[in-house]
């Protein structure tokens, strides 16, 4: 049986300088980035000078003084997630930004222990490890590849056992961009907007393709 995708999420993480207390759901609604009702029904986990965390119907926002993260666990809202981030830094175009990651996470469930192990055995073949360790198993694997576009950064893929299923595999794809240097403040938000507008679909598709390929290592029906 084919592995089942049981959870997926996308998030955008940005390193820079932020003022957490301003990232209130009401601010996002005022800026027409989320619906008024979504803001009113949002659950505020915490909003204090050092950190702001809230959860709306399809959006999670977490901000510290040097890190902004927006995430959605619903694929139907991935483009809206992108729009929220683009809109946020269109309004806050003077925010100093340094790096951005467009990330996707996938949790796959396999129907047997054998299928589950097949993924680990493919990514980290056991014969060499058997000589060094007793009953070796893959705990986590991270691979990094170069970008093929004109941006500075990398593509990183992490695979590990999933905590969400008995025979589960977690795959995370990080599409990392280095934004313009801190000296050019407004240029870094402009770069962010350009990347999110032009590279979003490529990033989503690449992550999907990688996740499907890796999960297929455990498809013993093939």
């Amino acid at each position, binding site marked *: 049986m084919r592995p089942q995708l049981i959870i997926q999420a996308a998030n955008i993480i940005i390193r820079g300088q932020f003022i957490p207390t301003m990232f209130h759901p009401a601010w996002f609604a005022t800026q027409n980035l989320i619906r008024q009702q979504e803001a009113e029904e949002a659950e505020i986990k915490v909003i204090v000078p050092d950190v702001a965390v809230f959860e709306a119907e399809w959006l999670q926002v977490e901000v510290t003084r040097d890190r902004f993260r927006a995430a959605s666990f619903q694929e139907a809202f991935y483009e809206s997630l992108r729009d*929220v981030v683009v809109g946020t830094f269109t309004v806050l175009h003077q925010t100093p930004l340094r790096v951005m990651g467009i990330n996707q996470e996938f949790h796959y469930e396999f129907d047997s222990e054998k299928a589950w192990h097949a993924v680990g055995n493919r990514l980290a073949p056991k014969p060499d490890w058997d000589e060094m360790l007793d009953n070796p198993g893959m705990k986590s694997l991270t691979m990094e590849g170069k970008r093929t576009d004109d941006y500075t950064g990398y593509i990183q893929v992490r695979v590990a056992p999933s905590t969400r299923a008995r025979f589960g595999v977690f795959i995370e794809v990080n599409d990392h961009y280095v934004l313009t240097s801190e000296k050019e403040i407004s240029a870094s938000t402009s770069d962010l907007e350009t990347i999110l507008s032009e590279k979003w679909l490529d990033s989503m598709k690449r992550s999907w393709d990688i996740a499907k390929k890796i999960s297929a290592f455990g498809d013993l029906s093939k």
Partner: protein
Amino acid sequence: MTESTMISPSTTKPLHNATLIPAGELDKAKWQNIVGYERGSRPNSDEGNQTQIDILNGESYTLDINLQQPLLSPPSLVDRREYFHVTQKWEGYVIDVGQDVFLARLIPIKGEGSELEAEIYLEEVDLPDHALVEPGAVFYWNIGYFIKPSGNRIKASQIRFQLLPPWTKGELEKARARAAKLINLIDDV
């Protein structure tokens, strides 16, 4: 940059459902100096709770803290057994609007097919977005299944319109200037 979905608590001080309350009570508090501001705490009458008091730049805030809860609640996850699996996704823009339908151009983002034009019933659109349906408006159309724990699948469709921040005065003026320049170029041809 790899980041875990889950946030690890950065301090040992628990915080749960904290609410920002201005101008707190300052008496009976134990104070410690932290660079830039002062923080104190006093026990509440509730067992397992205390009030944290912060003074920053002359303003004071009190937070009721549940000592049993972690500092930052990990992001809640969708029930892993039920989720909307998207099989087809388009980005569309509205060409024309009628009484019950609107005409749109659709560009595939996920799934099969090429660009196409379609008439879509207004009732397909999320109710809060009806006011956004006008020529030029951008929307996202997702079609797929809600997959239940039992394995039952419920076909689902969702249309959500793009939300953007309002144009600023400066952006409007730039757009007008650019439009005027383009008109002049066309007139010169």
